């Protein structure tokens, strides 16, 4: 990995950071609340999107630049220094921002085609129907001739709690008009939210009929004047016909589609398309793989209103934490580039899952955006990148942290294990002490930080076996670090076979913090292979 010559590297950190401006790509119902909270924290806001009637009130709250008719053309840069280009009616506008929050409303796709019907006066999509109902309620003017209203919700198998909540809202308004009978046709009732099952029970008690279909979905016969639903009830084994006054069709809710500019900013987010946040339990909230970019609500795949409201607090909290960290210069271990040997091949730019690397005359890792996973250092063909820690808060000088990758040549422990600090290192702690004693553990920030050279070095130094232990695929904090690690292990294994050696002394072990079993098994197998006497009985967890 990194040669000793990098020790005490100095970088040219000339980029000026501004952590006081937040670009909000708004439009979602919670984005006004978000702007209000950010203003309270003294941040200035660039708000792209229409704020409607709230605009005049919000404008008075702080330093807010409203761009209601703008379109985000492109965005580049890193936290504290995002360059934003916005197309407006008056031309292109260039702006700078410290943070980016994507808070756009979901893309609503009507499902007429899925059910083989056409939109008509009596066949409506859910959102317009709901908006209409609300408006009418406000003006207390009712559709007096409505008697029967049918809802198709997720009959194609796809629906979410947000849609059901909206259907129940409609029915609540409709059953206030006593003569209206509502029917709900669905496949799975989605009630996995607080209070939603109780609401479902209430609308049923109020007389709404709910039909659940497993396979034989209702058939709709649509003419110009009327719409007829033909369905069979498996329990009563008979056919029914219903001619409702209105058939309301549910909609598919998808993430906002106009976020390609933001996605281009975080190349690794392509793997979780159409969402902006990583599909991993390590990213349960608003944070994306790129520091300083947040996805709220629909952009992260959440469509249920009450939960989106939480996102406002999550964004504000995350921004405050980052600002506090930056002030303390306390980012910890980050990747550092030696400009003298960098050939600008841009491998690092390409592999960084957190999009923390920019380039000028040489590649430059942004110390605020870098999470120190070390994937770039392992991939750099010139070995110009190392992981290091800033010497002092004021100077841009780094102490190179080898993360123990320099393997001692004559360690009497037979097995070398590279352990991801997120998962495998924790699992290793749970192993029995006698098993631990047989292993030389090397804790790495991500399994992806272990290069082919590091692996071969362990074998050259006389290790009886080498383990690279990372997270399970889909659990990696650096999105695909563990995939790269597994790939590198297979490359070295191939090379060993090509060289006429056996590859079975090198293994990749996916592991989790709360499951040490797979790691224990791998160590035992390697010990057995090296002819080491080690009884199975003593190898299970320490006390049992």
């Amino acid at each position, binding site marked *: 990995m990194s040669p000793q010559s990098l020790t005490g590297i100095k970088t040219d950190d000339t980029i000026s950071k501004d952590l006081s401006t937040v670009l909000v790509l708004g439009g979602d119902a919670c984005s006004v609340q978000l702007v209000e909270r950010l203003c309270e924290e003294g941040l200035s806001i660039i708000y792209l999107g229409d704020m409607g009637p709230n605009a005049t009130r919000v404008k008075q709250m702080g330093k807010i630049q409203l761009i209601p008719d703008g379109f985000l053309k492109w965005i580049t840069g890193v936290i504290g220094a995002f360059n934003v280009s916005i197309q407006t009616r008056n031309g292109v506008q260039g702006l700078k921002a410290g943070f980016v929050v994507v808070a756009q409303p979901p893309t609503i796709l009507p499902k007429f085609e899925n059910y083989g019907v056409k939109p008509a006066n009596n066949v409506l999509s859910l959102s317009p129907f709901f908006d209409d109902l609300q408006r009418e309620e406000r003006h207390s003017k009712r559709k007096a001739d409505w008697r029967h209203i049918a809802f198709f919700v997720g009959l194609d*198998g*796809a629906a*979410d*709690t947000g849609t059901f909540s909206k259907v129940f809202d409609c029915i609540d308004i409709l059953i206030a008009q006593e003569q209206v009978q509502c029917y709900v046709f669905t496949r*799975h*009732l*989605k*009630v*996995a*939210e*607080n*209070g*939603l*099952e*109780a609401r479902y*029970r209430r609308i049923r008690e109020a007389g709404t009929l709910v039909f*659940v279909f*497993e396979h034989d979905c209702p058939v709709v016969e649509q003419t110009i004047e009327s719409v007829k639903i033909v369905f069979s009830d*498996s*329990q009563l*084994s008979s056919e029914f016909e219903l001619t409702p006054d209105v058939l309301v069709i549910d909609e598919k809710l998808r993430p906002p589609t106009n976020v390609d500019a933001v996605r281009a900013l975080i190349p690794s987010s392509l793997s979780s398309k159409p*969402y902006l946040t990583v*599909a*991993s*339990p*390590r990213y*349960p*909230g608003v944070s994306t793989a790129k520091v300083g970019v947040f996805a709220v609500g629909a952009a992260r*795949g*959440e469509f249920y209103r009450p939960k989106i409201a*939480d*996102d*406002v*607090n*999550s964004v*504000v*909290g995350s921004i*405050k*934490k980052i600002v*506090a960290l930056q002030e303390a210069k306390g980012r910890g271990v980050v990747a550092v580039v030696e400009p003298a040997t960098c050939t600008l091949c841009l491998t690092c730019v390409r592999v960084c899952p957190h999009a923390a690397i920019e380039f000028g005359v040489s590649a430059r890792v942004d110390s605020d955006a870098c999470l120190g996973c070390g994937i770039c250092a392992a991939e750099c063909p010139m070995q110009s990148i190392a992981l290091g820690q800033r010497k002092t808060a004021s100077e841009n000088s780094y102490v190179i942290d080898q993360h123990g990758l320099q393997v001692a040549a004559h360690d009497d422990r037979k097995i070398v294990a590279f352990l991801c600090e997120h*998962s495998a290192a*924790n699992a290793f*702690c*749970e192993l029995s002490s006698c098993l631990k004693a047989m292993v030389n553990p090397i804790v790495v920030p991500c399994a992806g930080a272990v290069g082919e050279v590091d692996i071969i070095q362990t074998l050259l130094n006389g290790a009886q076996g080498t383990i690279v232990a990372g*997270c*399970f*695929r*889909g*659990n990696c904090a650096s999105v695909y670090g563990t995939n790269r690690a597994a790939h590198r292990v297979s490359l070295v294994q191939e090379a060993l076979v090509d060289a006429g050696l056996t590859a079975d002394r090198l293994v990749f072990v*996916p592991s*989790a*913090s*709360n*499951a040490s*079993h797979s790691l224990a098994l791998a160590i035992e197998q390697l010990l057995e292979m090296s002819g080491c006497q080690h009884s199975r009985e003593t190898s*299970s*967890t*320490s*006390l*049992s």
Partner: protein
Amino acid sequence: MAGLTCAHELADRGYGSVLIDKAPFLGGHAVKLVCKATSVCQNCGACLVAEAIRETQKLNLINKILSARIERLLKDGSYFEALVVQEPLRILPDQCNACGQCFRVCPVPGAICLSPLICTPYIIRDVCSRHLGNACSACADVCPRSAVQLSASESELLVKSQAVVIATGFTPFNPAQKPRLGYGRITGVLTALELEELLRNEQFDWTPNGHPITRVAFIQCVGSRDSHLGRNYCSQVCCAYALRMARLLRAKQPGLDITVFYMDIQNFERDFEARLREAENEVNLCRAIPSEARPGIEGRVELLYHNNLGSNVWDSFDLVVLSIGMSPPDSIPALDFVVRNADGFFEVAEDDSVFVVGASGGPKSITESIRQAAAAAERVAFHLERVG
């Protein structure tokens, strides 16, 4: 998990916190769950609990008081003063290095147990011979780090704080309330939580009664969405855990025949439909809730259910797993300003310095608890900023 997340988030902002847990270890029910990864992560989040607990050991802004209960909580201006009472027989987790000597030397089986993570031991008071009046102090004598504390009486502590976060989690539904499902009566019927613990400790018996397990049934909504029991809510996690567990079992035993009996399958992940289709390839999904269980031949369990052809059938399984729901947490007598919502879970009546996080406020998965607690931590921090 929610409490741990909240404490961490507050520590990140420089606020100290005191974690008071009635259990002798942190992590609640979540720490007992098994990693569901097959060859890929199944997004259950159980590993994050282990990580959060290990992280807590490094942070000195978080103080832990385990095996404790709150006896009294008073509010004086912007300060709370809690009287915390701690168990007399304790092994101090900060001193313990999990060497296991106390565990081995203890003369009473079951008096010293091991916590699910890091295997730190703790004493079960009601079993301990010292509590029963004997003068035994074997564990304390053998401990090389003086971590065993055998006091004569409970110890009292005063804790002052400016905010109270309630993260008491949920109570697992007791399936004995649905006697027809045979729990406790028929061997081979267990709760999902029991199966989790067995798998986690690698104590699961794949060949009970001499023959290997080939057919497994999961029964969903046991204690959820059940108006007869007054539970008009969905526990929100069971569909996910049953399907993940089913896939984990299949990964361990590829030929396993698994049937999941359900009412409606709830969304538990974004791109849920794709997840469900994947699961459908491995698991039989059967829309019916069995009404009765009876012992079958060779230790099997027979279930009576209404099949999709409209007739009642008895079907035989080697193992029946009850996907038990989340019940509201037990009352905390000292916290009289917390009320219960329509489903029986906690909510705060009128106090801007009291916060409810995690499953104590309504059923939540691990990742949902983390997400919600992180958002709540910001509200707590906001409150602390204002009171100064």
